[in-house]
């Protein structure tokens, strides 16, 4: 079975362990982490806004540091998931991509002809105030709506 595991910044090993408990170890896993470039672009636009002191052209001084931080954090998130998959005896491959997570997850599932996408229900809701009942984060919701295959939605603390 070909499965895409959407790995967020945290909770990768827990997701892999839960998956192996459900589908067993005869699974071919693509552990995918997508760096959400949205917040960084928002920040760039904010820093480039009128009347502030950021340069009109060229890279802002902290741009390289922001990119490096996202790449390092993404790699760390995927690496710990790979270790968990290996412990569970699963065949795992890691991938770190950039863009809008919901779109990249769906596109990767299409390209890889995945049979299942596994994602935390709360994915995409991190950093927002939790008001009202627990719901589905915006990334997970988009994936449910647009996935070309089945979606396994995991609940639990991230």
């Amino acid at each position, binding site marked *: 079975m070909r499965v895409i595991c959407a790995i967020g910044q945290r909770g990768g090993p827990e997701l892999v362990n839960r998956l192996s408990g459900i589908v067993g170890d005869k699974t071919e896993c693509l552990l995918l982490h997508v760096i959400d470039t949205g917040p960084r672009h928002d920040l760039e636009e904010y820093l480039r806004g009128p*009347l502030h*002191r950021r340069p009109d052209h060229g890279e802002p001084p902290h741009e390289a540091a922001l990119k490096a931080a996202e790449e390092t954090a993404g790699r760390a998130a995927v690496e710990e998931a790979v270790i968990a998959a290996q412990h569970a005896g699963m065949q795992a491959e890691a991938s770190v991509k950039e863009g809008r997570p919901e779109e990249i997850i769906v596109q990767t599932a299409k390209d890889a002809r995945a049979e299942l996408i596994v994602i935390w229900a709360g994915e995409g809701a991190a950093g927002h105030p939790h008001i009202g009942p627990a719901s589905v984060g915006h990334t997970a919701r988009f994936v449910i709506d647009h996935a070309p295959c089945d979606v396994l939605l995991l609940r639990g603390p991230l």
Partner: protein
Amino acid sequence: MLNVHVIAGISIFLVTLVVIMVRPSGVSEAAAAAGGAVLMLMGGYVRPAEAASLLLNNWNVYGFFLGMMAISALADQAGIFDMLAYRAGKWARGSGLRLFLALFAVGMTITAFLSNDATALILTPVVYALVTRLRLPVMPFVFACTFIADTASFFLPVSNPINILVLDAFGGGLATFLRYLLLPSLFCIGLNMAVFVWLFRRDIWACYSLSDLPEVELPNRQFFNFSSATLVLIAIAYLTAAATQFPISFVALGGSGLLFLGAAWYRCLDTTRLYREISWSLFLFITGLFIVVRAVENLGLTAAFGRELLQLAGYSPLKAILVTAGGTALGANLINNVPMALVMISVLGTIHASSSNRVLIYAAIIGADLGPNLTTVGSLATMLWLLILRRRGLEVSTREYFKLGVTVVPAMIVIGSLLIWLKL
């Protein structure tokens, strides 16, 4: 009596404000203000000689703006902001909550001595990178930075250039400033912190591994030490200058000059970067606004506003304080806090300076400093909110963010006004 001349003058003023607010087809705020000023000069609302003397009289404000921006940029080049964020990460020992509180304290300190812009524009990306590396949710920390930049803006006179604009017009030393604004400032910072900790409690409760904390790569350790010592000196000099009413621009320019020489001495000076990090258009913006607001003053409009304000307040000083703070906050949020502060300076300048009327200056400072946080429509420090709302769509959670400013900021303004009134 209204005639064509007066109506045309009011129209130029209103169109200038609308263009600043809407920025149609990418017209910058500075171009809008400069355009308005040219029209006012051409229409004879301000005589060229009067405009020249107005600008010359405000040399302290220009000097402070320049020095303040240069100090922040050079401190950033020395790695001060990175080091402060790193120290906060170390101190928090893996607790997201402690890190959140520590970064609040860092933001408050930077705002207090280096101004709100330094926190909003330089500390925010540094915090973003740090929190990403620690794999904690970024948004609560970014919002905390942009918010505390405005909330801590009336802690000291140098915490926001708006304060210097107002104090330069009316005078008043550090003791008077602290007498009226220290308590409101501490209260607002405390309220801001408490509300954010409660709102983001689930996200900031997370832990992080200290091994994820990236070491800071300083460009030059000696320049860093030199800059740290110079910044302490600048902070002391700011307080002394504010206390003795010595021109604050001398401290800002002198401090930035010292940092500049230090950078050159330790071969860390990047003049291209320094030049790019100073917002030169800001000077055009203020210059244009000085002239536009003077024109409105010459038409007698701000004096009329002043009379309305006094009439509205009746004999109740509390009402006058609330109306001044609230009205300034609304204006600052709708247009921009610089023109709003200039209008209020002109309005308050026309009011007879009795002791109860003098405190209105401090009420205007609270309004102009906090106004941008009221909703996302306001000035630059909160524009991030609007961008995120647009990108994320109006989810329930983002609407809650929107509500946050609308509910917390009025509470800050009302209680801040009450605290000022109690000092009367």
